[in-house]
């Protein structure tokens, strides 16, 4: 779900641009310091791979088909930091050339798919990827990468005051659960394909990232909870929160 421009309120897109883009900038500088620019072509080609792979539809049954999203797969193949950089590049290109997702909303989409999606896709594999549950961990990665991105997108829309009545919300969540399950299955299928070709997955990253990953995870969870609160009771919870902090201007001028 790529959020276009014109949907998010100014506090939401401004703060997500600031947080998401500066975090990706930090990750990019880290990755560049570690591996140099020789990585750029490989990362770029993998981004192009995700684009191209989205053209292969797979059967779902009842006449419909789906396609790969890719953040979990990238996280498994490249490790989370590089995967976040590649996903950001994909989202930037989609926003600029294909009008898929907004330019001001890039930060929001980056947080949803390049940070939270990659993280959710990576963590199960990191925790359980070595043992008997490897395939299940990979499936969970694909599943949660899509679901986390969708939940965050819905939370951000709610925080911006876009009305999503309960029935619509449940239908949307149901559809995303289906998509997420498919993403899990397809991620497993591709990793099996890679196994058959004798390719390994990403090496485990150092412990340095652990704290950063935890911070991103917590921040995203907080955002989702805020959105959940907005969804349930207070349609303008963010404005109330800002008012309480003494930051907001008058109400009604979002």
């Amino acid at each position: 779900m790529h959020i276009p421009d014109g949907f998010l309120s100014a506090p939401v897109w401004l703060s997500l641009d600031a947080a998401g883009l500066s975090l990706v900038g930090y990750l990019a500088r880290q990755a560049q310091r570690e591996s140099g620019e020789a990585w750029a072509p490989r990362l770029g080609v993998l981004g192009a791979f995700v684009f191209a792979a989205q053209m292969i539809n797979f059967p779902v049954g009842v006449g419909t088909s789906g396609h790969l999203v890719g953040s979990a797969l990238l996280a498994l193949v490249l490790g989370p930091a590089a995967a976040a950089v590649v996903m950001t590049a994909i989202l930037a290109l989609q926003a600029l050339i294909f009008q898929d997702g907004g330019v001001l909303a890039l930060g929001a989409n980056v947080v949803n798919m390049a940070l939270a999606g990659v993280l959710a896709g990576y963590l199960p594999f990191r925790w359980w990827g070595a043992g008997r549950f490897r395939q299940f961990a990979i499936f969970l990665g694909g599943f949660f990468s899509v679901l986390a991105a969708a939940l965050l997108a819905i939370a951000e829309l709610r925080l911006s005051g876009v009305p999503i009545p309960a029935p619509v919300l449940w239908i949307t969540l149901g559809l995303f659960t289906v998509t997420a399950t498919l993403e899990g299955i397809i991620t497993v299928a591709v990793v099996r394909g890679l196994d058959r070709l004798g390719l390994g997955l990403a090496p485990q990253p150092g412990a340095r990232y652990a704290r950063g990953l935890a911070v991103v995870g917590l921040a995203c969870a907080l955002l989702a909870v805020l959105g959940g609160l907005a969804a349930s009771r207070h349609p303008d919870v963010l404005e109330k929160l800002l008012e309480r902090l003494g930051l907001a201007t008058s109400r009604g001028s979002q």
Partner: protein
Amino acid sequence: MHHAVVDRWSSGHSLLHARDGRVKVLVCLGFLAAVATTPRLTALYAAGYGLAALAAVMVARLPLGALLVRAAVVLPFSGTFALVSLLAGDSPRAVALLAKSYLSAVAVLILVGSTPLPTILRSLERLRAPRLVVLVVQFLYRYLFVLTEEVLRMKQARDCRRVRRAPMKEEWRLLGSMLGTLLLRSFERAERMYQAMLSRGYVGEFPVFAPRRFSWRDLAFLCGLVVIVAATFRWS
């Protein structure tokens, strides 16, 4: 191919094409921010933004119809949410969602239609975007079409060998193998490419033909727009 359309537009010549990339990026961001933060998108505002965009299209001599059609790709998404807003009894928001997302898409298309992507990316880098991300976007865009054609060839090969759909399990195995092979080929291609680029003198910069300096015309363009915008907000 389909996407090369924007590349053809951006290789044209006009007053807008000739402006400095950084100025155009900043003006586009300013326009987007103005549209996004307009509290109530009245007909007057919408007309004003529309006229500004129309003027830019005219100056850049972009094909208006094609551009409007291309920008319409945002409409299914915003249309869905607009419909929900309408049903929830919030018709001003429904109109605002549709108009704002469409105007924003038009503005971004004018930017990429009047500025080649390498120039935009170089401008972003000079505006402090992380270098690695900018480089990755460069490579991504260059190899997008190559890999897309690779996928089309693989699909054709699959469809030639398979008369009808295999059982579900077999289909999934096939899909995994296709994507795995594509990934492997992408890796190999990346290595070959990088060696080839190094051997041709690549030092981490994509050459931009006819590099330009920030001229007084760019400054005048920027100042003029700032004055117009300030006047609009003062007057409204």
